[in-house]
């Protein structure tokens, strides 16, 4: 439980530290400005433009640092920042670099920073230091020799002067105490308002990434439809053609050879049963009904409880995801568990399903760890891992596999949730 004095002190200390750190960076900014001034004359001869991309990148990282620190102090999230990378620029490109809104914003900030920071430092750092220095003088001024007196704001050679110094110290201390929190806040908020990027490019970026994930979702949908089409044609439909054919054969032989006809009918029945089994499996494969009833967590626990190897399941960080993502996660998990049970000779399997908040979209992570003999290869025959990789890819996800010979095996599948 913080005491009242501690709660009053902490924000002031934060502001003091923030301004102190900014003062350090102010020096870096000053060096940068010197570098710019040194390069400036050469811009007239053209050769100086070769330094421009580097200077622009430096300014960007300076500004980004300032923005990040200000956001940290203000306890807000800094906007996402993509550092510029300049390669193989033509002369025109170099000229264009200094006309971007980003550069102009950064440059404005730097100028303001260079001119205003000394005032802020004088108030935010200077006042507290003066307060301490002037107040403490009263303690030791008398010990200093007369020809080399203690100096606070002025040489202190007598008690009245020492008391005056104490008074100045108290005033500076009170002033500093009062203005420090607000000063820190103002500094941070003006930095942020100078450096806050235009919303438009940010929106454009967001739209771009949304359209990309939408395209990926459509692709996934199309490949899923292709898979279903193929399974219907090569599975159920072939079985039914078989049924029709066997019945046709039975019809043909019924009068002359009833025994053969009966055999044909039996085959027809077997083929029809096959068709039904195939259809049932396929429907399950399209969307396992259990996912609808119990969600991914429930469906996963049914899977893990069926394991002969002790298997733990952690779904603490799992949130609901779109049906397509959940069903992919379900099949990925089923495949991974089958592999672990079949090949790994593990004594324990740990499954973690979690949702990672992310930008622009959340990511569903399926992690399966076993302490078996390892050596699983994604391209390996019969492992079904290739299918897992395909399934993940179709949703724009990834499969990462670590399985050194001798184990342990860790499979991680990340599936973007599309929002």
């Amino acid at each position, binding site marked *: 439980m913080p005491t009242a004095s501690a709660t009053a002190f902490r924000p002031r200390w934060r502001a003091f530290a923030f301004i102190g750190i900014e003062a350090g960076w102010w020096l870096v900014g000053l060096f940068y400005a010197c570098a710019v001034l040194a390069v400036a004359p050469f811009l007239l001869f053209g050769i100086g433009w070769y330094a421009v991309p580097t200077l622009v990148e430096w300014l960007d990282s300076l500004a980004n640092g300032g923005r990040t620190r200000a956001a940290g102090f203000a306890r807000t999230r800094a906007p996402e920042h993509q550092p510029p990378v300049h390669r193989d620029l033509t002369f025109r490109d170099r000229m264009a670099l200094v006309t971007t809104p980003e550069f102009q914003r950064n440059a404005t900030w730097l100028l303001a920073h260079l001119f205003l920071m000394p005032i802020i430092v004088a108030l935010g750092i200077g006042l507290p230091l003066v307060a301490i220095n002037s107040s403490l003088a009263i303690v030791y001024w008398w010990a200093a020799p007369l020809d080399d007196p203690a100096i606070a704001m002025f040489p202190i050679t007598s008690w009245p002067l020492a008391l005056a110094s104490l008074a100045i110290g108290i005033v500076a201390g009170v002033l500093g105490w009062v203005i420090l929190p607000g000063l820190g806040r103002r500094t941070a908020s003006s930095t942020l308002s100078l450096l806050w990027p235009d919303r438009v490019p940010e929106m454009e970026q967001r739209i771009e990434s949304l359209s990309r994930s939408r395209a990926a979702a459509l692709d996934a949908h199309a490949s899923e439809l292709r898979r279903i089409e193929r399974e219907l*044609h090569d599975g159920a439909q*072939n079985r*039914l053609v*078989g049924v*029709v*054919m066997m019945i046709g054969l039975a019809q*043909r032989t019924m009068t002359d050879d009833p025994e053969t006809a009966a055999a044909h009918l039996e085959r027809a029945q077997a*083929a029809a049963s096959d068709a039904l089994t195939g259809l049932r499996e396929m429907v399950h494969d399209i969307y396992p009904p259990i996912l609808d009833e119990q969600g991914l967590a429930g469906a996963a626990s049914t899977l893990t409880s069926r394991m002969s190897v002790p298997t733990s399941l952690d779904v603490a960080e799992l949130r609901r995801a779109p049906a397509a993502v959940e069903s992919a996660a379900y099949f990925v998990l089923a495949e991974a568990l089958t592999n672990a049970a079949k090949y790994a000779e593990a004594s324990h399997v740990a499954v973690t399903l979690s949702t990672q908040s992310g930008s622009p979209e959340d990511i569903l992570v399926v992690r399966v760890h076993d302490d078996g003999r390892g050596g699983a290869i994604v391209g390996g025959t019969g492992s079904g891992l290739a299918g897992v990789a395909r399934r993940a890819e179709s949703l724009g996800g990834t499969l990462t596999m670590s399985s050194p010979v001798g184990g342990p095996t860790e499979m991680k599948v990340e599936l973007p949730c599309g929002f």
Partner: protein
Amino acid sequence: MRILIAEDDALLRAGLTMLLEGEGIEVAAAADNADDVLAAFDAQEVDGAVLDVRMPPTFTNEGLRAALEMRERRPGFPVLVLSAYVEDSYAAKLLGEGASGVGYLLKERVGDVGEFVGALRRVVEGGTAMDPEVIAQLVSRRHADDPVQRLTPREREVLSLVAQGMGNAAISEQLVVSEAAVGKHIGNIFSKLDLAPDDTGHRRVLATLAYLRS
């Protein structure tokens, strides 16, 4: 009559073999992929082939390509292609190589053993067997101001059967009318569509198919 079979589904392959042998047709080889059936085609003396369109490895149109390859190596070699669904471009490809001895049927037509075997025999004898679905698609695609729209419903029926590759006798049997009536319908159709009236037998099928596909 010696026939090659190419069908990747084991049950259907066995069934087709059984079906053809039951009808007194010798099955020279039954392969489950395009390469094997082409090898058998090169190695043996055969009269025709029945091929599934989709076969491994890509399950797209291996069977169709094998059929075209056979007809490339032996022009006019009778091929009957079976497909899970009607794809007009498949039919067009087959017919493009000269339509004599070409069949394109939906897989499920094997259920009517008599008709299926009849179609196969027709193809082996140099005729044509187009699936009614293919013809129906071709007919339904005609524009509103197309001469086909001026045919009577009965004439359109006859046109479809002609395009499927049926002879007058088979058509009269199917429609339960006299052969003379069929002949009259065909005369009317050919004059309405502006086709040469002297086209008879197989050339007649080609003419109607060409017309429908144009």
